[in-house]
């Protein structure tokens, strides 16, 4: 019995893609394998680790907890969409590079999308709000200290504030 395929239009990083997928194809897998946007990573497939977090209509969402077929009529942003059109790093990405906010890089895309949305909603977070912003994402390498610094640095970069670069 062949599995039924569904024609799905996924709008990702501003570009519409038409794919044919079974209903059970998770959005995380569709992004990675059907659209070849492998920046979104899969760490647990039960919604806990956050590595798969993308923005759906601007809101952080676990792509491993959505089916691709459910993602029609939405605008999806993945980590690839955070890079500037000229290829340079966006402010959140830049902050991570300056603050050593990543080591193996596997959890990082989920943090980047989450923080991008978080700073859009709250451009001047307090220190506590910075920690809160990343409270739903797991990292096994960094111990979070530098990720929190990166959130603060990203806020400063976006504000255009002249904050000293971290030591």
């Amino acid at each position, binding site marked *: 019995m062949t599995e039924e395929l569904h024609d799905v239009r996924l709008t990702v990083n501003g570009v519409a893609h038409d794919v044919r997928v079974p209903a059970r194809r998770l959005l995380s897998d569709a992004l990675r394998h059907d659209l070849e946007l492998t920046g979104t990573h899969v760490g647990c497939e*039960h919604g806990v680790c956050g590595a798969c977090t993308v923005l759906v209509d601007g809101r952080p969402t676990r792509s491993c907890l959505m089916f691709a077929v459910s993602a029609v009529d939405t605008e999806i942003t993945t980590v690839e969409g955070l890079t500037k059109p000229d290829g340079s790093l966006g402010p959140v990405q830049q902050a991570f590079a300056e603050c050593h906010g990543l080591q193996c890089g596997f959890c990082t895309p989920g943090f980047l999308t989450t923080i991008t949305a978080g700073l859009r909603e709250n451009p001047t977070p307090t220190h506590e709000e910075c920690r809160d912003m990343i409270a739903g994402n797991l990292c096994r390498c960094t111990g979070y200290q530098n990720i929190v610094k990166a959130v603060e640095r990203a806020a400063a970069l976006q504000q255009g504030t002249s904050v000293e670069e971290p030591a």
Partner: protein
Amino acid sequence: MTTKLMGTPVQRVEDQRFLRGKGRYVDDVAVGQDVLHAAVLRSPHAHARIVDIDVDDVLDLEGVHAVWTYDDLAGPMAPRMAEPLPLLIPHPALTHGRTQYALAKDEVNYVGEAIAFVVADDRYVAEDAVGRIKVSYDFLPAVVGIDRARAATDLVHADVPGNVGARLEQNVGDAPAAIARAPHRLELDLTIERSACMPMEGRGTVARWDADINRMQVWTSTQTSTGVRAAVAVKLGLDLGQVDVITPDVGGGFGVKINHPWPEELLVPMAARALGRTVKFTEDRREHFISSAHERGQVHHVSVGFDDEGRLLGLDVEFWHDHGAYTPYGLIVPIITSTQLLGPYKPQSYRVVFESLYTNTVMVTPYRGAGRPQGCYTMERTMDAIAAYLGKDRTEVRAVNFIQPDEFPYDQGLIFQDGRELEYDSGDYPASLEKIKALIGWDDFPTFRRSMAAAGRKVGIGLACYVEGTGVGPYEGAHVHIETSGKVKVATGLTTQGQGHATVFAQLVADELGVKFEDVEVVTGDTRRMPYAVGTFASRAAVMSGSAIHLAAKRAKEKVLKIAADALEADPSDLQIVDGVVSVKGSPGTSIDLGTVSVLSNPLRYAFDEASKAATQFSVGDPGKPPVPEDEEPGLEGKDFYSPERATFASGMHAVIVETDPLTAEIKILKYAVVHDCGHLINPMIVEGQIHGGVAQGIGGALYEKMAYDESGQLLNASFMDFLMPYVTEIPDGIAIDHLETPSPLNPLGIKGAGEAGVIPSAAVFASAIEDAEGFPISAMPISPSELFELRQTREETP
């Protein structure tokens, strides 16, 4: 560029691709290409005989290409696939070592053991197929936990009496006698529960057999490319030279990915060749829990004799190590426990004996710390117990036992995990102690405790010291190649899982060669680029590959200077290399760039590019002699290896202040401090990141994480919902860190390993602090609020 990069916080080159989502981890390899996907049928039972496996329904399923069970492995193409997986590190004491088969033969010994391997169009269909395989079992009793393994009412392996895989005893002096005649004696019983590395990326392997050139190409998320290469070649009946192993970007290892070959690392290449297709296996999280590896579970019994100052006259440690169902990694973990237990101390006599036991659970191989956390826990709990007994300050008791700065090198009289003497090369433990006391506010703590008590709040302070043997051999190597473009291509064979090797090694090459950091590109873990290597483990990469790269860069530089001297008609000692240009010191007009030197190093008949043509302005060599001098090779390369006589010993101390809730027993970290000595630092930002990460993993292991097996061998918490790794909210906001640098005399850069340090003293330091807060002994770790509550109840009921 005249400033040295060694010791500076250079931003990482890896980040440029990771931050753009352009990393290439194993599941990213071959995406969009024609790939088949694998899934594995894993045993749902901890101990059973396989009576029958029925795969009839599997091949009917659309999209399924093949299914293998053990019986399919014993074919003529690769007869060795039917043999057990290698026992990587044998040891005379490991009298009853056992390894599993790539697919279970007659028996399964843990929930998760691989039974059948399916390859299909995609992972979804492969899992459907696995669901259709019908296996009938004869159940056998499961042995779970150290107590039941020791009792041996049931056996894991029928031919392993008492479930004892190994028994190893080491003695320095006569500890039992020293204890018997010591002024004071104590006994302790201690337990550490099993945990696991749990990298964010699980295991995975991709393989492609190129029938046109008879080569097998393998990508695998590993810590040892050369180890996997050798295993694949041997098991698949290929020449080593026919196999390439490329380590992609790896999303964390922490030790679990040093074990090899996983069954899938053999089954995937086997399937790729059999089917003539690229095959990929990526495990899911549940599989990682039940079919990779765990570590940490041990039970210790300590007997110690000491004098009025707390000096250790005799230390006698007996412990039981749970190594799970199989022993592919030998006895490394318990050997490290036995030897590193000594920490920074010099007991006058020491006896350590362990039994390494089988249980029907996932096997045990190193996890960051690799047995050291358990040893540190035992030693530090003992120190605390001695201090409590004598009514002395816990730091005083430790201080009288320290190896003193003028006693290095210090031979502990034991054989370490590398088979060599456990001889500490350098360190300054008294200085570290002063620093950690200052950093945590040790002397001010009694005042703090009183003021908190007045507000009805309970706090405690703990301290733990460790020594870590790092940079173990046998060797690592490096290859430095300066291309005609002037770019420097560097390769070392060990692997990377987030440590920033491409950055730190480029720093070393830039410094040694005098080139721009941006012009250096480092590749790790690719057997095509560097086929001689051991792997990344035991905090050895900076020491081993760092040293090898430094030496290889030196060789390349020597050749550069020789050729440049000839071209510039100068003496090599009059030359300098700055930003990739060789010039005569004080005469900047007389110069030649590295790219041109590279052209000159390779006398070709043909000029391919502008660089070759430009080089003709220089003449080198003697027309009366061969163009490539004897004992030389064409090209501008340097290759060298670093093979140390012994490990180099890093050390450190952690301290923590905790608060425990009188009603709910919740445990809160108020302050965490680290003093850390890893010799000279190549990149302090990266070292600090390693400490942060290690401390977080340590907090997880001390307060949240453990493997919860039930009596029948089912892992009850095989998911991130129930295996509790810390989020940012469980980690203190800021860690106080101070450094000490006692350089290593054993390598040219004076460096020591840093990767594991953060996690080694965690169980010890938290047990110490919680005990200090509560006023009763804490002997089992990790500890949760519920467990602390229950301990309090027991204390109340039995005063």
